[in-house]
């Protein structure tokens, strides 16, 4: 166990009361509890409020482009499998701009932990609808209410046989830390969708709204049954489940790439001499 203070980065520039504070605290506490030193992990992010998180925690950071965190994280995880690679992203960044990468990162089962700050609205650009905005919610750019149906990232991930699918809520810090720990311990791609209310722009899905609905899945729930998990992922209304919805352990992407050397790419010494013999094939 390390001290949480050792994980403190710059002072966050989020709005007072933002759900991201809880999320940041949970992540710092989880890493401290697991005693993973800051240089042992890389946090990759795109653009949005969630994407600023790597600046607020001590870490190796790749704060790239809007929607593009997962491909960059994939490159890092493949080049250096000894590095714990986490992505800090939002519902707009990951499910909107980066939707295609989301699908294919799941399919690859790359060893990346995806923490989605899901506040069901765009924060950085001031309150437009995101893919997880509930149908009908009015915004300045959706004056007639969001016309598209709400995306269900968990159901989508289960449909793609994502190896770890979970949902957390910043209003239940203890459980959130547990889920972060499980995601980090899971070998393979882990999706943790985290409800974190946007106090500035989402007047529907507030702390209270979530508090009244979310509940923890208990030990009687079996996350390995894919069909049941799919059913569970559809539960959205008076009750909304949090916990590990689906888990399907299997070799992750890097483990399936049969390179001659077992060393991480980044630690291998380049054997230029060996490569020269390839010229013989052109005679």
């Amino acid at each position, binding site marked *: 166990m390390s001290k949480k203070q050792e994980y403190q980065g*710059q002072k966050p520039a989020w709005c007072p009361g933002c759900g991201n504070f809880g999320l940041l605290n949970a992540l710092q506490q989880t890493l401290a509890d697991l005693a993973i*030193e*800051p*240089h*042992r992990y*890389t946090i*990759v992010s795109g*653009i949005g409020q969630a994407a*600023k998180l*790597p*600046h607020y925690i*001590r*870490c*190796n*950071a*790749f*704060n*790239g*482009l809007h929607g*593009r965190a*997962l*491909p*960059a*994280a*994939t*490159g*890092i*995880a*493949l*080049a*250096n499998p*000894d*590095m714990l690679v986490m992505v800090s992203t939002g519902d707009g960044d990951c499910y909107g701009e980066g939707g*295609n*990468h989301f*699908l*294919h990162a799941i399919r690859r089962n790359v060893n990346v932990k995806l923490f989605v700050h899901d506040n069901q609205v765009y924060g950085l650009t001031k309150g437009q609808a995101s893919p997880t905005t509930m149908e009908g919610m009015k915004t300045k750019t959706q004056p007639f209410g969001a016309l598209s149906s709400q995306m269900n990232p968990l159901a989508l991930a289960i449909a793609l046989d994502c190896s770890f699918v979970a949902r957390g809520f910043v209003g239940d810090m203890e459980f959130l830390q547990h889920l972060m720990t499980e995601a980090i311990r899971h070998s393979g791609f882990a999706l943790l969708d985290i409800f974190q209310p946007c106090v500035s722009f989402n007047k529907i899905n507030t702390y209270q709204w979530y508090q009244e609905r979310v509940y923890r899945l208990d030990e009687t729930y079996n996350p390995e049954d894919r069909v049941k998990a799919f059913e569970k992922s559809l539960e959205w209304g008076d009750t909304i489940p949090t916990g590990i919805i689906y888990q399907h352990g299997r070799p992750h992407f890097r483990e399936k*790439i*049969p*390179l*001659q*050397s077992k060393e991480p*790419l*980044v630690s*291998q010494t*380049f054997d*230029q001499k*060996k*490569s*020269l013999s*390839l*010229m013989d094939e*052109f*005679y």
Partner: protein
Amino acid sequence: MDFTIKVAGEAGQGLQTTGAALARIFSRLRYHVFTHQDYMSRIRGGHNFYQIRISDRPVTAPRQSVHILVALDKESVDRHFKEPLQKGLVLYDPELVNEPLRGDNYLPTPFALIAEEVGGKKIMANSVAVGAVLGLFNFSPEAAENVVRESLEDKSEEIIKANLQVLAAGHRHARENCKMLDQFRTKPAREEKLLLINGTHAIAFGAVTAGCRFYSAYPMTPSTGIMVYLAGKSAEHNIIVEQAEDEISAINMILGASYAGVRAMTATSGGGYALMTEGLSLAGMTETPVVICEMQRPGPATGLPTRTEQGDLNFVLYGGHGEFPRVVLTPGTPEQAFWATNRAFDLAEKYQIPVFVQGDQYLADCEWTGPAFDLSRLHYTDYRLRGTALAGLTGYRRYSFTENGISPLAVPGDSKHLVVVDSDEHDEDGHIIEDAETRKRMVEKRLHRKLESLRREIAPPDLYGEANPEILLIGFGSTYGVMKETVDSLRETYAIAMLHFSEVCPFPGLDRFDYRKVLEEARSTLCVELNATGQFARLLRAETGFSCSSGVNRYDGRPFTTDALLDEVLRLFGGA
């Protein structure tokens, strides 16, 4: 000795196999070979050809005129009927025409029938064609054995033997029935072993020898061959090759891998590069080394997917939002492409910038022969800060201000130092800032200071031919070979030379070679480009103030042939 053989037919008929086998056999016999291909964007049918030039001297471009046409379908007979010289010969399958074509320059060769009679299978018709062409030149059928064995390595000995017998039968058929064998006399071959390599393989082989460890791309003609080659070598040479879901992902994956500490590359064509421009700009801002190979095809949009053009020069020079340094290399030959790739990896890592190797379909697919590459010239320096050297530092800042603008590039995880990069403007530690002063200093660091030394790295253009030319052909990239042959053909008549640019960004200065003087002293300056707007002529004018007196632009998706460029030069300067 300078013969051109054209193998033409529908896609799926094996003309690629036939052409490639002939080219390989000739080069193993130590003749110089130049091949180019013309194919349609379809897997079956259509009209395609594979053209092979064979000579006892180096050949670097295609010829218009054909000496031997191997017509695998009726359309090829009709379409190329007028192409062969009067001395030319057409090999065709008599089963494909209603009545035999008369004249000594038609050699009916029942490819399928011979294959079936001798080998038991029509599918061996290609071996009949290979044998017949070897027969015309009186090369022994045994010369083909190794090549046939290699191309059929996954087949049984029985099938290999049958193919060799079929090939020998094709050979006999040509020797016994062709009435113009004396037209195909060969000169003795060279003594040295010759490589036969195309631009695609030269770049991919160049990447392996430059220490590329990670490659991600999305399939797009004419760049896909690079991924095919690297995927084939990946396990043995410890390279991760991943086909991305799109080009946006491809470039961001290589940025991630490069950030993590390995050399990384992608390749694409214009449309894919369009998707990559956002990531290109990220490479510029985060100062992450990457190599991007852009193999052009005619646009706009999908354009002509399997043809050639030099229409993306401006796009590669200026693509990506914001201002950041980049290098653009435009090799003219497979060998130059090999060295350019080595240089691209080196410059990318040394300066922490994106470096382009720009080619086109013509460079990608053309095969050239030449002596072995002098691999002792390969450059490999690991510029990254790793292990104990990194751990020993008391402090580390990813973007620390330095004299030359290059900050130490540390490998994350190798020490307790944290490596922070950001697409936002950032401070020396990599964290987001918005203040004017830091912004200004960062621009000066990553752009101005780096450019100062980067400019000195760039090679001057290559002047070939007359040292003080009256006529000067100017170009960049894949037109090298055809311009060179044009110069060779006209040197006895004119004081002519070629000025070829294989590195165009930053544009070469005049300190190492005052090429501006050559430009100004020439009476006629002709910019040869495979595009409609003269992008290179304009670049030359912007960078040097020099305007070429005229331009030869081809934009029908086809490469220049030596004959066509020669005619054009003669038309313009006939009275010079």
